[in-house]
């Protein structure tokens, strides 16, 4: 479903601030795979997501989604295939527009936008049905402005908007990091539920190791722009945080005290 092959990206090449963001990145996801990505800050996790979404273009290498090469496809065109939820709950919705209008915009993702009303009676029923699956009571507030919702509610809505048109790829970039623990748990559970329901091919970046172990059927660890560890479904089942940290030390041979504090 998604292939990255020999992807390289360097920021500020040839200057003092040169940073090799991605090197030799190869990745192959099958349909329905749920990949969790961990690694310290600056490891290249978000950069990799941005390469997939088209926000960044690679210096070299190819991106293939559903057997069609998309490496040079513009971000907005590629977005027909990709659903995204950002870390910032404010980023995934339009605050001055209503819930139903936001959903209508998400609904048009993989269709051509026309000069017909975005919110119709029929669509409202559909939206209501989907909102009910969030169990937040948003189905009764269709015409409320999204700016009035709490961070957790907005993130749940973003998640729904990104997924209910069943994109080929779902990208979750630390989408629970800005929420309080109970809201984060709610969004985590919803994520598992929705990904399962639509059988979505998913990539999730997280700093929460437990979350990375609990969710998904595959895990990769990144460091310094490279994928340094790739764990498949059978191995992932009996993986623990300690084992992961030991593994990291073994590969990198470096002290991870700081990283432990960040990742724990």
């Amino acid at each position: 479903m998604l292939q990255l092959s020999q992807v390289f990206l360097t920021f500020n090449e040839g200057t003092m601030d040169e940073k090799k963001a991605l090197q030799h990145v190869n990745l192959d996801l099958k349909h329905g795979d749920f990949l969790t990505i961990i690694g310290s800050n600056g490891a290249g996790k978000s950069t990799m997501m941005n390469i997939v979404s088209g926000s960044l273009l690679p210096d070299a290498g190819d991106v293939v989604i559903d057997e069609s090469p998309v490496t040079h496809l513009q971000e907005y065109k590629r977005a027909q295939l990709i659903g995204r939820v950002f870390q910032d709950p404010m980023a995934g919705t339009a605050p001055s527009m209503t819930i139903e209008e936001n959903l209508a915009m998400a609904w048009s993702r993989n269709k051509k936008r026309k000069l017909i009303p975005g919110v119709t009676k029929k669509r409202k029923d559909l939206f209501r049905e989907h909102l009910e699956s969030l169990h937040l009571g948003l189905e009764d507030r269709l015409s409320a402005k999204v700016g009035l919702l709490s961070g957790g509610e907005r993130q749940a809505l973003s998640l729904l908007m990104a997924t209910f048109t069943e994109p080929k790829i779902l990208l979750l970039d630390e989408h629970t990091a800005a929420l309080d623990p109970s809201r984060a748990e709610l969004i985590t559970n919803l994520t598992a539920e929705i990904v399962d329901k639509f059988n979505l091919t998913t990539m999730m970046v997280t700093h929460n190791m437990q979350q990375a172990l609990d969710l998904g059927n595959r895990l990769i660890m990144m460091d310094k722009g490279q994928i340094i560890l790739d764990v498949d479904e059978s191995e992932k089942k009996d993986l623990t945080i300690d084992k992961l940290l030991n593994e990291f030390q073994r590969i990198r041979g470096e002290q991870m005290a700081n990283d432990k504090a960040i990742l724990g």
Partner: protein
Amino acid sequence: MFISIFGALESGLIYALMALGVYLSFRVLDFPDLTVDGSFVTGAAMAAVMIINGQSPVVATIAAVITGFIAGCFTGLLHTKGKINPLLSGILMMIALYSINLRIMGQSNIPLLGETTIFSSVTSFWESLNLSAPFNAVIGALGVPGTPQTWAILFIALIVTLIIKCITDYFLKTEVGLALRATGDNQKMIRSFSANTDILIIMGLGISNAFVALSGALIAQHGGFADVGMGIGMIIIGLASVIIGEALFGTKTIARTTLAVIGGAVIYRIVVSLALRVDFLETGDMKLITAIIVIAALVTPKILESQRERRRRLRKKAELAEVASLEEGGKRNAAT
């Protein structure tokens, strides 16, 4: 007095089209577009030149709208493809249009006296049916001194403005319109939902300036001339209309907001026409009056808000003090 307010109503409704254009760029797209000063004149110039060359006023007005649309698209291109800051793209286009407008007109002023305009043809049709008489009778019965020459202009202006308003309302609720609004609200988000924000910005600015040019074309036909300087400060007038309208009539829904913008434009005209009746003020003071109205409209709501807030805090403090003194009293009673 009545006659001058009547005149303000007429021109206010025509300027409301310009204000709707400014609303689209400033509010909906969140793009402070200064092209307006130029495209207003472009509309007027285009219409005037075509009319004196014998074209029908309707064709001339449509041509004006198209030219305005193109001018707006260029501003959008400068910003999206040229990556030029919004304010600067607008100013560049405004300056460029000054020369283009002179080229279109061939001289700095085109009088339209005696030419057939949209208003003159509607007025003659209207008067041939003697439709003004019943309105004048009502006015006379109310004891208002003076009767306007014709009611035709007011009605045609009202109808055109309402049609444009309804089109805008409908458009902003379509799939494309929703994406346009989201572009002004959260560009990153709507791009992640597969909308080409560049095209939306270009198109939005095109429509905005098409409205502005329509307003310019109609003002030229209403006033009987096109002048290369008639657009100076137009953006501030548009902004004043939007701000006044929103403050007075609210922004709860799209339909309400567009109505508020039209109301704002009319009220702005009335305020100016009343201000000009003060002996001390001259026509040349109009821009100063405009600036003062805009400043007042921007500052007053903030002052009112902070005063309300201060009063609320004082009241809260007084309530708490009262509770405390009651408790104090209770304790003393218990002690004795």
